[in-house]
């Protein structure tokens, strides 16, 4: 079992650009949640996808959007990047919106 995988590992973008991050859930999991972890902070919940729909959303602007595919993998898209979007983006998967979430290693996004 490969666990939760995320790509890319690191990414450098400039302000105003757009970025797409990818996540493959743990085998058998159908729910994917995305978190933003700024330096020195705890993870902040962005949104959760289940059955290819956004089921819950945290306090993030519409510049943050996502998608879940039929194979349960997911993408996080961020438009019009700001310097403050620099963070570690974590993906977590679970079964049927369950409580036990398994986290991927994250994607480190740097916005210059």
């Amino acid at each position, binding site marked *: 079992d490969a666990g939760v995988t995320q790509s890319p590992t690191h990414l450098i973008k400039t302000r105003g650009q757009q970025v797409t991050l990818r996540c493959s859930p743990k085998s058998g999991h159908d729910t994917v949640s995305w978190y933003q972890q700024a330096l020195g902070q705890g993870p902040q919940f962005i949104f959760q996808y289940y059955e290819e729909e956004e*089921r819950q959303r945290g306090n993030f602007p519409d510049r943050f959007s996502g998608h879940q595919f039929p194979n349960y993998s997911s993408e996080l898209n961020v438009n019009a990047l700001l310097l403050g979007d620099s963070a570690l983006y974590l993906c977590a998967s679970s079964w049927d919106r369950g409580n036990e979430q398994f986290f991927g290693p994250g994607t480190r996004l740097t916005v210059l």
Partner: protein
Amino acid sequence: AQSVTQLDSQVPVFEEAPVELRCNYSSSVSVYLFWYVQYPNQGLQLLLKYLSGSTLVESINGFEAEFNKSQTSFHLRKPSVHISDTAEYFCAVIFHSGGYQKVTFGIGTKLQVIP
């Protein structure tokens, strides 16, 4: 308001000494409680969780946490720490509200084990 507080940003402790990492929450609804550990440049790993039942929960590597509803706390303890326990520890709470489960993390506590 629903919130999670980890008062200690850093906790230095000598090897083989006991440690307690504190977590308090504020909630008017029922909760599930978790502790996650994050090693440098890695994602989060679930350490232990409280969903229901016994208020004392244990992990496989010697950590334990106790849910105290009256004090709204879920402190993490270990009687004797090892160098390999050096990491950042996050308390997380799921607040049950309106059919949705919102996960809120604390800001984390860095545990530094000193040889």
